[in-house]
């Protein structure tokens, strides 16, 4: 038995019961990171000293008989686009190299209050733009199931960290699939909450009408535990709405009898790998065995999702990323004749190729003469996409699809063709456009031992149902407990 085989829920229980200390857990996970990091490269920075300090604080509270939070002593990896006061925050971009966060993101503040231990900042595609974590200025992250392959993206570091059990939990952000797609490709759970469920304050913005922070975990129970801590309204983010946060852990226990699952026919297409189609259909059979009913539905505007996304997301990004200008923080070009040149050179030198491409695309779409043809048009089609879901959810409680049309691809395979790379998000984008919650859960392995993900989409603010489906599925199928060989091997010191 090792710490790596324990869930976050079990870890916090045992720390509270004083079976082991938070410091022992933190030390064990930091040792695992040291051991596995050279192979996986999931982290931009590991917070060795700070993590031990946080763990010691939990132990000292427990020793004094003081109350501790629901995540007391649980190590968590944080995507490097979330501000942790006093730590660097880079977005895996040269333009932010050297920046020290001056405040905590709201999600981070809540995690601190809950007693979580931050083990490090994880790698991402620069400014969360990408599907493979290859667009990082600091090098690519490897898929723990096969280091020749990508972990997915943009939250590839967080997904890989949980898959290799370098942390039992992680946070990511999801603008078009950046939590769910890497979760699927790395064989862990990844949840994008409803737009407005989690405060975005302190998350470096990519596309503000689409971004959400969400959890990675190895079980539905852990996912529920983490979501419960980070969810809720926030005076610092007016879009984090004042909706009651349910007791997700209690909701897990309700059964699946009578649950209606819809299969959108537009998501079961010839382009999906046969092994993935088969695994998803197998999972649906399992869910039927647990009391759910399955019916075919239609989301007729599906074919336009990607085009809408690749207007709206770059447009919002081009506006959001205008703040990186070499004046208040970040990279400043060494030689410039005037202020305009300082902006242009600092940005030209600081941003990587994919970020520049998207800024260009967004600026073009918003520029005079093209606004109506692109941006306004896309916003209207977005309405139709959302209406498709509104209608579908009159007939079903949950919508099930594959998370990704293919398993993890080889590094470098799609780098040269941006459109091919964008197509790997084809099943995850609609969820962000419609603002819905979406959860990817492991549902199989390919013949080549690569993870497959099942995506569940829910009604707004109904994360509880998604987690409940995942929890019952896990009792019937153990895919979430499978670990990549690199993580399961005994050569580690993290023993309980």
């Amino acid at each position, binding site marked *: 038995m090792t710490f790596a085989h324990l869930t976050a829920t079990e870890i916090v229980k045992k720390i509270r019961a004083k079976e082991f200390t938070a410091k022992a857990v933190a030390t064990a996970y930091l040792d695992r990171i040291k051991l596995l990091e050279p192979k996986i490269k999931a982290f931009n920075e590991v917070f060795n000293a700070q993590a031990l300090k946080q763990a010691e604080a939990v132990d000292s509270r427990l020793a004094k008989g003081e109350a501790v939070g629901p995540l007391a002593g649980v190590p968590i990896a944080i995507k490097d686009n979330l501000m942790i006061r006093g730590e660097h925050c880079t977005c895996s971009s040269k333009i932010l190299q050297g920046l020290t966060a001056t405040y905590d993101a709201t999600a981070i503040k809540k995690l601190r209050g809950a007693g979580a231990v931050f083990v490090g900042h994880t790698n991402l595609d620069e400014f969360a733009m990408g599907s493979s974590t290859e667009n990082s200025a600091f090098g690519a992250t490897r898929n723990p199931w096969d280091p020749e392959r990508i972990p997915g993206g943009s939250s590839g570091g967080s997904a890989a960290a949980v898959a290799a059990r370098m942390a039992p939990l992680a946070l990511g952000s999801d603008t078009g699939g950046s939590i769910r797609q890497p979760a699927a490709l790395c064989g862990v759970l990844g949840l994008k909450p409803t737009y407005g469920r989690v405060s975005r304050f302190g998350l470096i913005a990519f596309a503000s009408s689409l971004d959400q922070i969400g959890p990675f975990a190895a079980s539905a129970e852990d996912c529920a535990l983490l979501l419960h801590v980070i969810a809720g309204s926030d005076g610092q983010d007016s879009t984090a709405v004042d909706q009651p946060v349910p007791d997700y852990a209690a909701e897990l226990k309700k059964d699946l009898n009578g649950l209606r699952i819809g299969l959108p026919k537009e998501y079961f297409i010839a382009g999906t790998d046969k092994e993935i189609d088969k695994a998803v259909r197998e999972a649906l059979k399992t869910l039927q065995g647990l009391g759910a009913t399955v019916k075919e539905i239609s989301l007729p505007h599906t074919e336009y999702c990607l085009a809408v996304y690749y207007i709206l997301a770059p447009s919002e990004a081009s506006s959001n990323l205008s703040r990186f200008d070499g004046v208040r923080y970040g990279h400043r070009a060494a030689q410039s004749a005037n202020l305009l040149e300082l902006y*242009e050179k600092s940005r030209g030198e600081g941003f990587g190729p994919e970020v*520049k491409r998207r800024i*260009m695309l967004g600026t073009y779409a918003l520029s005079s003469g093209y606004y109506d043809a692109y941006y306004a048009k896309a916003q209207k089609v977005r309405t139709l996409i959302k209406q498709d879901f509104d209608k579908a959810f009159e007939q079903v409680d949950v919508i099930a699809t594959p998370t990704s049309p293919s398993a993890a691809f080889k590094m470098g395979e799609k780098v040269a063709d941006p459109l091919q790379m964008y197509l790997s998000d084809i099943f995850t984008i609609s969820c962000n456009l419609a603002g819905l919650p979406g959860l990817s859960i492991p549902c199989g392995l390919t013949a080549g031992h690569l993870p497959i993900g099942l995506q569940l989409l829910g009604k707004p603010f109904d994360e509880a149902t998604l987690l409940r489906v995942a929890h019952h599925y896990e009792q019937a199928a153990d895919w979430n407990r499978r670990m990549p060989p690199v993580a399961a091997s005994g050569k580690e010191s993290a023993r309980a």
Partner: protein
Amino acid sequence: MKITKKDVEHVARLARLALSEDEKARYTAPLESILEYIDKLNKVDTAHVPPTSHVLPMSNVWREDQAEPNRLGSQTDILKNAPEAEGPFFKVKKVIE
């Protein structure tokens, strides 16, 4: 939609991005193919469809107009991140000749 080098230069200027000659050449084709893909939206009739800017059924959220000192950290910490600062100011090139 045909994208020329001139279009790329125009957009780069609007976006305040200095691009090398090589980059200008490299961005032309992908921009064109992405815009071509996006053109499929013209097949959708949206004559009577309202736009969605965000999905939440809310308009404005108001609060008292009060300063919140240190909301984003202390002035000292914030200025430490500046490429160039002088006293309590961010320093840049002369703006007005």
